[in-house]
């Protein structure tokens, strides 16, 4: 990451009605060439942040910088930021070529320059033969690519994307994720991507900012976000997650001893607790839980009752009742040496201290 960020949000706040802050004190640096995703449930403030960056919403408070230039008062048309809109916003009364030419004509670029840029942009998204089609004559994936090409036709260094893949079916969406990722890598642009789809965010991003309630809950790489969530919201929002509630009894060297009713003492990694005596929520990923471990191999063991088995091919999704929580999920790999469990049986489960994170309730 270079020293000078491409985009900087400095103490930015946004309120629509003067009563509720939809964005509360946002501080965020986005490095040049980075792919940053704003991820969060709807109403979490992520789209508002993107719109403030694009210039369609004004920040109630604080400053937004683009390459160290304060852009709060710059009109959207003068910001020099590319954008891919939700549902693409391709102009339906213009052909693909006219759509791409629009920003060039507005800037009074020469005809030859316009044509070469359109050709280059269409080549980039592999739609060379479609210049004279209308957007509605294209499939969803093709429209998506045209929208990307239009956002990039001016060689902007920063491109914003507002849930660009939301309207595509699952297979196409996955394919487009890789394509956008590759375009980003090839051009070295800075991308700010908004989505509520966590798989999309994990696949594409260098860093992910998880939004909730107008605040960035965690800003880190996809791996950190999944492996080391810092609070219970992130743990539950990203991936699947088993919850056990208990009270901290002792704490040393970053490990808490947590008393869980019905399961005894569990040793967990201290992340975000309120100290000894406080309640905590233990978060364990389903794939980190082992069934019938060899005794002594894992720090934490407890018994659970099998409630439901769902066969999913590569693994068997096992729903168990553990310490009063009957939504405790264990992913049992489908290997032959695993003895088959049966519904109603009791089984021992175990997990390591590292796999169990003590978070806020």
């Amino acid at each position: 990451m270079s020293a000078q960020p491409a985009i900087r949000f400095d103490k930015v706040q946004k309120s629509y009605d003067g009563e509720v802050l939809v964005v509360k004190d946002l501080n965020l640096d986005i490095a040049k060439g980075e792919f940053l995703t704003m991820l969060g449930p709807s109403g979490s403030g992520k789209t508002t942040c993107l719109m403030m960056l694009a210039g369609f919403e004004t920040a109630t408070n604080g400053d937004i910088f683009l390459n160290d230039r304060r852009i709060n008062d710059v009109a959207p048309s003068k910001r020099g930021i590319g954008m891919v809109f939700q549902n693409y916003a391709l102009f339906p009364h213009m052909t693909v070529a006219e759509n791409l030419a629009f920003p060039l004509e507005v800037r009074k670029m020469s005809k030859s320059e316009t044509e070469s840029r359109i050709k280059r942009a269409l080549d980039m998204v592999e739609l060379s033969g479609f210049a004279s089609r209308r957007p509605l004559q294209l499939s969803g994936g093709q429209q998506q690519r045209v929208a990307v090409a239009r956002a990039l036709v001016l060689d902007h260094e920063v491109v914003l994307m507002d849930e660009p893949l939301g309207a595509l079916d699952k297979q196409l969406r996955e394919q487009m994720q890789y394509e956008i990722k590759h375009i980003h890598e090839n051009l070295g642009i800075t991308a700010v991507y908004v989505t509520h789809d966590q798989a999309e965010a994990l696949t594409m991003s260098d860093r992910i900012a998880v939004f909730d309630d107008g605040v960035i809950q965690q800003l880190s790489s996809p791996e950190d976000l999944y492996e080391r969530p810092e609070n219970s919201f992130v743990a539950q929002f990203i991936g699947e997650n088993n919850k056990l509630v208990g009270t901290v009894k002792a704490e040393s060297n970053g490990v808490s001893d947590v008393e869980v009713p019905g399961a005894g003492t569990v040793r967990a990694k201290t992340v975000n607790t309120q100290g000894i005596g406080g309640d905590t929520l233990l978060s364990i990923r389903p794939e980190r839980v082992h069934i019938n471990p060899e005794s002594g191999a894992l720090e934490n063991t407890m018994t659970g009752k099998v409630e439901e088995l769902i066969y999913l091919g590569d693994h068997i999704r096992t729903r168990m009742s553990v310490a009063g929580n009957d939504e405790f999920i264990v992913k049992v790999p489908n290997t032959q040496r695993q003895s088959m469990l049966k519904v109603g049986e009791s089984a021992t489960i175990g997990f390591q201290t590292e796999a169990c994170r003590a978070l806020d309730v």
Partner: protein
Amino acid sequence: MSDATAPNQPLMTSDGRLLKDALQQSLRRSKLKALGLISIPFLFLVIVFAMPVFNLLVKSVDDNLINEVLPRTFAIYEDWDGTELPGEAHYEAMFLDLTGAEGIQIGKASTRMNYDKSKWKSLIKKSARKFKNIESGPYKEVMIKTDKKWGDITFWQSLGSMKDPYTFGYYLNAVDLRYNHDKSVTAQPENRRIYKMLWGRTLLVSLIVTVLCLILAYPVSHLLATLPLRYSNLLMICVLMPFWTSLLVRIVAWMIMLQQNGVVNDALVHNGLLDDENRLAMMYNFTGTIIVMTQILLPFMILPIYSVMRTISPNYMKAAQNLGASPALAFLKVYMPLTVPGVGAGVILVFIVAIGYYITPELVGGKDGQLIGNQIAYHLKSSLNWGLASAMGVMLLAGILILYWCYDKIVGIDNMRMG
């Protein structure tokens, strides 16, 4: 695989019939049902629309009435060279025709004859009464004695243009032309020329009203389409409320507003903007027709434009601005072209309704606010010249169809969205 699905074997139903026939039979039943459902609206359309329009077409060229009343006269009319009074044979034929026909028919025919040459009606009325006392000829002498107009050659000459069972005379009349007795076309005498001016005025009023409606409706529709639901509902009610109010009530309200001592004039005088003796004449003239028609037709413009604007995502404007266009340019290049289907529908709708408008000009138009629709009504109700009324109706219809065709060529009818 069973034998039934082998390629050469026809598919059969379980009770041994050909599947193809069985399918067709069951489909036929549902087709008949569908036909039955549309037959009532179809019949309705034929009875209340297609037949009257056809009737109108026939009426506008039909001129058979005189032939029915004067068959003997017209049978030998061609024998006359038209330079001096016809001979005894023609007078005899005329006498027999007039005494032989039914009184009602003669009355109708004489009215029709009067359109071509005035005084025919009074001549025939008088003659029909007096001819009853005449028993024998020579008819020429007796008839001229009864009324000396029978000795006027121009009456005999005017019969020439009435001889054909069909005529385009009504169409000529509708544009201030007429047939001479020798079937050549000339302009109406100066004091009878009004229709060309009326057509012109009708077109002008329709154009002005359409343009005014467009100017007024566009921003209102935009507000309707973009305001939060709470406010847009209220605004929509404001748009629709006049639409739901009786036309007469609205016109009377305008009368109260616009008359010499009306609200508008009073307010202007009261505020010193106008001298008391210079009160504006906004009623019973061209201005009054324009103002009231614009207000009445405004919803026809707002609704189609609104329905199109509502479907335009605000993202288009954002995208255009993001791509470097100023808000004004984005509006011109992106938003306006997208509203064309609604604007087209609104313009066509308002123009078509305006061009045939009748009640408003009748009530607030005064003398120089009358339109062609008022003349049609006059000929239908008062002068009973249905042929002329029909011809003008057909011309209006043709004008609208031409307009529609032009629109289709320029914008495309598929592009039109009524709502």
